[in-house]
């Protein structure tokens, strides 16, 4: 008897229903996975509704060829496409398919794994892999491939700068730090070709999120063993994602071709994708000259394209989670006094400041931008660092700087970068001068020199931008601000109550409880003014009218490929020009 497949749109509805009654993420996955196994082809996270939707009189283009690039996308030749070994290879993620992936709402959904289940406390996870999972040369892509790939990532010989990513896995850290000679003790085991069992160091509610991220992508063992570092060249590469690499002319262009062995191949409309290497300096010129179909925009081009009637409708904003914030160094006067820090926080006129970014920043009142897991919208928290010049001055009473006098030399240090970072910093200087009579010197530093000093806590006052690596508050809070870290701390600020909340959030598997932990952590940090959020990153892109299929998330925003969601290309289809 043929079991009807439950359409994905219904599953999304189910998720909403469940979360309304308090069923947490992990639990939903159990439920959804259970439902999916009733279906014939397994869980396909792409909503059925996303099949090409054509308007009246429109036709699918005969030539399903998309050209993307520019605006920061592949401004340099990738060093490889080997995400398994080098998370920052800047290669094409669409060549790969991981056990899970992020959907357009940045929720992890099963992908190559049709089902994900955990034990009672969330310390052992089991991934059931689809039996139609193949590599682009037709050979099966099995659990053994994933076991080998993940162990390769943790292997100290790979020198992967991001290998601490999997330290939640039992035995991963000793293996990576060479305290044990091999990976036999690491808790990743392929029980058979289609089952992968992962044992963690303890309950980890967020593990599905980790397995959906770029750092968990597989590699093709025979190719790696045969070609070594050159295995991702076009002539050698074997991949399991929606596209294969047909050609790669270094520093010039990459050409992708639809992978007919891909598990979701029947739903991929695009046949060919051309990605020229376009340095930032070209701006939107290639897009405007019809040499590209889809391109992110930089500060100089947004206003012009938004104002011009011809291109107005082509421009759209897309979510790209990042936060600009200030770090007043608690070990250096005048910021060693919490009242001074709070005063600075009250003096930040966010609405005015973001105007200088010309559309590329919006005011921020907490670390995580809206729409992402862990976003905080509590009025109580918003009030802690609200813009209030009177309160700012009032805070200074009782300090040596009362009335905005006697400020010592204050240097605001930042790293050289684009997208309006410098004008924003100058705007911060301006409001501090206006509301607190605090004069600051802006010091723009070369990238590596800046980082070297940052880790040493040399700077008195820092202007810094953070991009979200994966959508879980653990990344935003723990990785950035956890006080007990021995290395990799950007600031000297430490707060025990704050750290406690972070540890609770890490170890709990109950989603609602976790979010409460992180919200409390945010409240503590803002009250102690360990950091001062100023703005969230807003990014814009432009797409020609012939490009369709870009997904929209729950908030109605169009989503393009980023660090987290990399599923754009399989959804796109081209229509005939009107």
């Amino acid at each position, binding site marked *: 008897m043929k079991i009807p497949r439950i359409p994905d749109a219904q599953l999304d509805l189910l998720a909403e229903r469940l979360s309304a009654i308090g069923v947490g993420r992990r639990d939903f996955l159990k439920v959804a996975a259970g439902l999916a196994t009733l279906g014939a082809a397994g869980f396909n996270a792409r909503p059925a509704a996303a099949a090409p939707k054509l308007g009246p009189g429109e036709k699918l283009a005969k030539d399903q060829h998309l050209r993307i690039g520019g605006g920061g996308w592949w401004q340099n030749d990738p060093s490889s496409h080997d995400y398994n070994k080098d998370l920052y290879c800047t290669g094409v993620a669409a060549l790969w398919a991981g056990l899970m992936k992020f959907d357009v709402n940045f929720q992890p959904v099963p992908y190559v794994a049709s089902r994900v289940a955990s034990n009672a406390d969330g310390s052992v996870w089991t991934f059931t892999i689809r039996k139609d999972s193949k590599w682009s040369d037709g050979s099966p892509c099995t659990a053994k491939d994933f076991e080998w790939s993940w162990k390769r990532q943790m292997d100290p010989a790979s020198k992967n700068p991001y290998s601490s990513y999997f330290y939640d896995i039992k035995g991963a850290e000793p293996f990576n730090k060479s305290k044990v000679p091999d990976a036999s003790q690491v808790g990743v085991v392929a029980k058979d070709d289609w089952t992968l069992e992962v044992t963690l160091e303890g309950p980890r509610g967020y593990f599905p999120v980790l397995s959906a991220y770029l750092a968990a992508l597989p590699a093709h063992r025979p190719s790696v063993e045969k070609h070594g570092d050159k295995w991702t060249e076009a002539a050698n590469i074997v991949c399991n994602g929606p596209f294969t690499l047909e050609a790669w002319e270094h520093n010039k262009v990459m050409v992708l071709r639809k992978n007919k062995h891909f598990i979701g191949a029947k739903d991929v409309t695009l046949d060919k994708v051309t990605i020229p290497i376009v340095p930032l300096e070209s*701006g939107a010129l290639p897009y405007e000259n019809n040499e590209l179909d889809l391109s992110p925009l*930089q*500060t*100089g*081009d947004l*206003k*012009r394209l938004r104002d011009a009637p011809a291109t107005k409708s082509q421009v759209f904003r897309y979510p790209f989670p990042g936060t600009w914030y200030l770090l007043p160094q608690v070990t250096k006067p005048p910021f060693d006094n919490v009242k001074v820090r709070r005063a600075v926080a009250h003096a930040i006129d966010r609405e*005015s*400041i973001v*105007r*200088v970014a*010309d559309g590329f920043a919006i005011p921020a009142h907490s670390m995580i931008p809206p729409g992402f897991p862990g976003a905080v919208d509590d009025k109580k928290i918003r009030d802690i660092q609200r813009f209030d010049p009177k309160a700012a001055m009032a805070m200074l009473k009782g300090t040596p700087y009362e009335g905005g006098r006697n400020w010592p030399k204050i240097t605001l240090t930042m*790293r*050289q970068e684009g997208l309006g970072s*410098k*004008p924003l*910093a*100058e*705007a911060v*200087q*301006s409001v501090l*001068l206006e509301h607190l009579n605090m004069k600051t*010197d*802006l*010091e*723009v*530093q*070369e*990238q590596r*020199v*800046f980082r070297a000093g940052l880790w040493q806590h040399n700077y008195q006052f820092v202007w810094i931008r953070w991009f979200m690596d994966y959508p879980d508050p653990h990344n935003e809070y723990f990785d950035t601000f956890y006080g007990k870290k021995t290395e990799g701390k950007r600031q000297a600020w430490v707060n025990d109550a704050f750290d406690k909340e972070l540890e609770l959030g890490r170890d709990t598997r109950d989603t609602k409880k976790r979010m409460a932990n992180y919200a409390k952590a945010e409240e503590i940090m803002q009250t102690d003014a360990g950091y001062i959020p100023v703005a969230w990153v807003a990014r814009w892109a432009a797409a020609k009218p012939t490009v369709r299929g870009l997904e929209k998330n729950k908030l109605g925003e169009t989503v393009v490929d980023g660090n987290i969601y990399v599923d754009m290309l399989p959804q796109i289809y081209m229509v005939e020009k009107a």
Partner: protein
Amino acid sequence: MGLSTPASGTNVTAGPRPLADPDGIRAPLPVAVEAGAELRSSSLWRDAIRRLLRNRLAMAGGIVVALLCLIAIFADVLAPRPYTKTNFGRLNEAPTRDYLLGTDQLGRDLLSRMIYGARVSMLVGLGAQIIVVSIGVPIGALSGYLGGRADLFLTRFIDVMYAFPRLLFVILVMSMLGAGLTNIFIAIGLTGWVGIARQTRAQVLAIKEKEFVDAARGLGAGFARLLSRHILPNAMTPIVVAVTFGIPEAIFTEAALSFIGVGINPPTPSWGQMVGEGQQYIRSYWHLCVFPSIAIAVTMLAFTFFGDGVRDALDPKMK
């Protein structure tokens, strides 16, 4: 190298003086004679100044240069507004009656920033050139004059310095000495003298063969006097031309360095940086990039004409 823009770091000057003055008799001590007037003996310098004053184009250039210097010195008085005063309500506005040259990304008055920018650009441009000339000319002159092993050694030294990784050196200097205007033009100057050295050497090589040099030597002139009184004044042409090119080149080098994060720190305005940062807005807010570009071009033209005039004045054969 591929970093600064005009001629990519060549810092070039001309070669040896051609066979323009074979006996060079006229080089020292020309005597000005006017029909019917009493014989007036005058020095090389007074003659030169008189010639300079008569050259209208050069004087125009000189006046502009002087004006720029005055603007740079009196920026505080001349600028209608402080260059840090922001206005979040009027960002990136094109020129209006209120803001004669428009406003920048923070609503600051572009005219005021241009005026203060004159100070920075003059300092960077002239400061770097002073260092460049002080190092490059003596080295080149010594190399060309002494010849033999000294020449061989110095030329190789110049060759090595030519390939020097300027960007890295500037990062190093800035991180050791800290940010600051003087450190920047020291760093630029210390790595930019090689072109002038080569040109000076080539000039000196040719000139030292001339009879007037022999004559002067025969008269007992020592090495230093020979160089400073006789040879170098005749080698001036390429040095002057190189300096006029070097000034905008230093300005652009500073701008290029700021793209990496080792330039002058904001909010201090520098024309070079304003052009560099304004480039991405050229099609939306043209004024951000165009006005500083014009300023640099005018500065360069002024130095060019004035420099040409100075060189012409010092050349006794130009009438």
